[in-house]
Each structure stands twice: as structure tokens, then as C-alpha cells.
């Protein structure tokens, strides 16, 4: 019985710490400069996982555009709110979409406003020690339609 339990524990641990068998790929990358000097910029992209195991996102950071955080807009009972997301996962052979009205990266540069045209370098750390670098060009907001689906 004890051997059986130990084997199950080992299998579970092996599953949790399994190295991903493929690198994450970033697609459909874009972002918007803030509309007010004190406001954050926002970045959207899709992370695609061609591997056979789910991949956990450990952290997102930026050396060029201030503090970066993964946030989610949610609408519950007609009320919109934003909250930090700490446990995002990219499913095996699937994708995690950051898009308007849902998951997004907030970029908070502090005292320096991020102007349209700025290129922000994002670092997505995943599966412990893997890292994906994404370059996001901040677009100006305008009267045109959104480049992606709308909420």
C-alpha cells in the first residue's frame, strides 16, 4: 500500500514539474498607448502552445516600459472590474488569448508616460526557467474599429 502511494506521489510530481516539450509562440501582438499621462498602456497577444502538456505562465515583466502585470477584465452581473491574474495557463496544443475585454497586460511606467509609437519589450517567463520575449508597438487609440474582436 505504502509503495503504491509513493508511486502515485511520484507520478503526480513528475506531471507537475514536467518540462514543456515545445516553446511558446506569440502571435497577434499589438498594444495601445494610454489616453492620459497617468494611465497604463495595454498589450494584447495570443500565446500558442504546440506542446503536449499545459504550460503555466510564471511572470510577465518589461525592462523598457515599467511594471507589467497580467490582468483580466470581468463583467459580473453587469459590473466591470479588473483583477490581477496569477495562475494563467496555456493549454496543451492550444492557446491563451489576451484580447480586448478579457486578459491583457497592463504596463505602468510610473512617472514617464508611454507615447504612441513606443516599442515595449515584454518578457514572459514560463515553466520555471523558460522565457519568451515579445515586442509590442503601442498604437494610438482612435476612432477606427478595433483590430481584433470586441467584447
Amino acid at each position: 500500500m505504502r509503495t503504491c502511494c509513493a508511486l502515485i506521489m511520484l507520478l503526480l510530481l513528475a506531471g507537475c514539474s514536467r518540462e514543456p516539450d515545445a516553446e511558446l509562440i506569440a502571435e497577434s501582438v499589438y498594444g495601445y498607448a494610454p489616453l492620459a499621462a497617468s494611465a497604463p498602456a495595454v498589450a494584447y497577444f495570443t500565446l500558442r502552445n504546440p506542446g503536449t502538456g499545459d504550460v503555466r505562465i510564471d511572470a510577465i515583466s518589461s525592462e523598457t516600459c515599467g511594471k507589467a502585470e497580467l490582468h483580466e477584465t470581468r463583467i459580473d452581473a453587469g459590473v466591470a472590474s479588473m483583477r490581477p491574474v496569477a495562475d494563467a495557463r496555456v493549454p496543451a496544443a492550444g492557446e491563451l488569448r489576451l484580447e480586448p475585454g478579457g486578459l491583457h497586460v497592463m504596463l505602468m511606467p510610473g512617472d514617464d508616460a508611454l507615447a504612441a509609437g513606443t516599442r515595449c519589450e515584454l518578457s514572459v517567463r514560463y515553466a520555471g526557467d523558460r522565457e519568451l520575449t515579445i515586442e509590442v508597438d503601442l498604437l494610438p487609440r482612435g476612432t477606427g474599429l478595433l483590430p481584433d474582436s470586441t467584447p
Partner: protein
Amino acid sequence: MNARNVLPAILIVAALAGAALLYAGLERRAAQPLAATVLPEARALPAVELVDSAGQPFTPASLRGDWTLVFFGFANCPDICPITLQQLAAARRELGADADAAPPQILFVGVDARRDTPEVLASFIRPFGPGVRAVTGSPAELQALASGLGLYFRVHDDGSETYNVEHSSAVLLLNPDGKLQAIFSAPHSVADLAADLSVIMSAS
């Protein structure tokens, strides 16, 4: 006309009448709003005193004369607030092409009293073109306006610069009398907004 010819004639007339009724029914259905909830009786707004993005006093009475789309949000919101304004501006533009009446103006209500200064709001609405106004005010006046419109907001001001603000995601339509006429619940679609606005505005 003998009896043998009467029956086909009656059938043809009945078929034509049926087709006409069906067409009228489809027309009536097509003219119903798709996503909006239209109030059976328009509701007056509370007489609150706010300030606009030029720093000038503002009361809801100044909205009379035009249709107005109202959305509550905050300028530090990077996602849903600019997206919704972008959608409203797009619907307004789509409607402006063939509407009988002038397209509705857009009123953004900044509920984050500390950070939504007139200067910040002016910067926030500038990219969305003409026809967009922004107002803010004291927490008490903003709360009175929200309550009068049946909306909700809550500012989680913890002293930091990145605090969150919860707010209703609905867009409201005021009629040219400055009264609440219809409610658009999220999620919003530019096509539905434009179609419903056309129906509601032309029916009034």
C-alpha cells in the same frame, strides 16, 4: 363569374393577404431593438452638479436637445473603458451616414473623483473625435447620478496610483428631453448599437 372560378379567386386573394400580413409582421420584427431594453416611460435624471472636461459646470439639463449615450468608467482604465468609447464612436459614425436625426452625442462619466480631473478627461476622450464629452464631480454627486440612472460604481482607492474601480458596463441612451430612454447591456456590438439606435431614435 361562375362558381367554378370563384374558389381559385378566393384562394389567390387569401394567399396574397397572408403574404402581406407575413411581410408586415417581418417588417415589424425587424424594427424591434435587438439588444436594448427600452423603458416604457422615460425617466428623468437627478439634478446633480458636475464639471466637464473644460472645467466648466455641468448639469444633465445641458444634454437636452440631443440624443445622448452615457457610459460610466474611469480614465486609468486601459481596457474596457476605451474599448467601449471606441465602439460608441464607431456606432455613432455608422449611424451618422444615413440617420434621419443627428447621431447621439457621447457622455463619458469619470467616476474616479481623485484621478479623473478635467485635464485627464480631456486627454482621455480626445482620440474619439467630436461629439464626445466627459464629466466628473464629487463622489457624492457622482453617486447621486449613478443611483438616479440605476448604475453602480465603487472606487477602491487605497492611496496607490493603480487602484481598481468597479463600474457598470451598461450604456444608457437619453432622449432629447434629457431623460433615460433605453439601456444597452454588455457585451456591446457596434452593429447592434447602430441598428438599435436607428430604431429607437426614428420611433420617437
